């Protein structure tokens, strides 16, 4: 089964950067990623935080604990395929 990845979306990047800094302080891994178009919804192109499946529970707990501002957390099949040969 393909690994799941999780995208944390934000209303603006200030919230995104704040959460990333918070996660980093707590030793939790997350990476800034452009939000996949399919899940952008009413938000336009912009950053999200990409979290691996093995870290999502800890990240959720951290968000809960700190009441961190975010728009939503979206679960997706792993989107990253280095051999896809699709460029832009």
């Amino acid at each position: 089964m393909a690994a799941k990845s999780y995208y944390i979306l934000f209303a603006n990047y200030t919230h995104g950067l704040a959460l990333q800094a918070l996660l980093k302080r707590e030793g939790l891994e997350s990476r800034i990623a452009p939000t996949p178009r399919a899940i952008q919804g009413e938000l336009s192109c912009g950053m999200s935080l990409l979290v691996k499946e093995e870290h999502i529970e800890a990240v959720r707990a951290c968000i809960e604990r700190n009441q961190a501002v975010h728009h939503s957390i979206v679960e997706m099949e792993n989107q990253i395929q280095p051999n896809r040969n699709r460029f832009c």
Partner: protein
Amino acid sequence: MSNYVEMWKNLNMDLETHDALCQVLPTAFGDVYLSQENRPEGMGFWDFVVSEIHGIRPSELIEAQKNGQKVFGTFCVYVPDEVVIAANGIVTGLCGGSQFWVPGGEKVLPKGTCPLIKASVGARLDRTCPFFRIADMYVGETTCDGKKKAWEILGQDVPMHIMDLPQMKRDKDILKWADEIKEFAAVVEKVTGNEITVEALNEAIHTINEKRRALARVYEARKAAKLPISGKDALLMMQIAFFDDPKRCAQMCNNLADELEKRIADGVSVFKEGTKRILVSGTPMAIPNWKLHHIIETSGGAVVCEEMCTGTRYFEHEVAEDLPTLEAQYMALAQRYMKNNCACFTPNSGRIDDILRLCKEYNVDGVIDVNLKFCSTYDIEGYTVEKALKEAGIPVLGIETDYTDADAEQLRTRVEAFIEMLG
């Protein structure tokens, strides 16, 4: 983030077409960049900038315009940023690195024009690049025939200033370039309404030198036996340097360099031992053109240096600081910029010397000389480059490509075979 949509509307952009780019960019960036493991933490800044590529910097530029600053869009590493900055103007790169914009360019340009020019013209005419919408003036130059003619088409749409770049490097050519810079300075003064003083220009020269030093520091780290950063990441840093505020750019690059230097001391590498060290030379790779770097780095190679406009040509050589007069400063600028070795010059033996020198400095195993399709000057010079490298005993692979995905498999076969050949 939704405020970007409002901003794009105000810029009179074609939102529907632009949305198609929003669709492909996250996928490509994920495949190319986020697939990498153990990247330097400092790359987070550039990941962030790409995530907000048509939002964050454009909104800064618009804010600056509201405060009376003017924005100059440029296409080439021969145009001296210092002059604009000295007049409190802002320099930005313009879109031109994606297939996304090419069909728009082909509406008015012959198909046999290089993709960089087609994409730039397409991005402007189709209204899908905010930077093209924001710039108060474009600064063109006469580096190639395709550009010269493209300016005539672009010029019907927007105010343009064109700098006449000499194509030889005799003393009188350098004098002429100093004169062109002086003339450009007068144009910039008129557009910005600000006088360029010796002090202001000296400070601008210092700012850009600092930026060059910071970029050079990151490149310096790529000379290490254990590579602390991938070629793709270094390329991204370089591509965004054309768009960012020069002081912030220097700061971010210096932060990254600090981290890379620590990685070198700790022996941290992003490649496994024995990965072949590749120098990529040739035509520029404007953002988001990551194709060749990605293919190389997923085929057993590591790009250690770019002998390109989006590479060493952008930061090597500094401009003399603390000169007493504008005349002397313009001359110093001319001397620095004329040290760039572009294939539009004849003769251009300096570029061969550069490539051979970089091969030594970065301890490369092989060179991939890449040519954007229909760029005849680099294409023709490829013969001389390959010959010189073969004589020096350095394996070289010549490649011609564009922005499309169609040749990716073929390129992969060639690059893989080349890397197998390196042993």
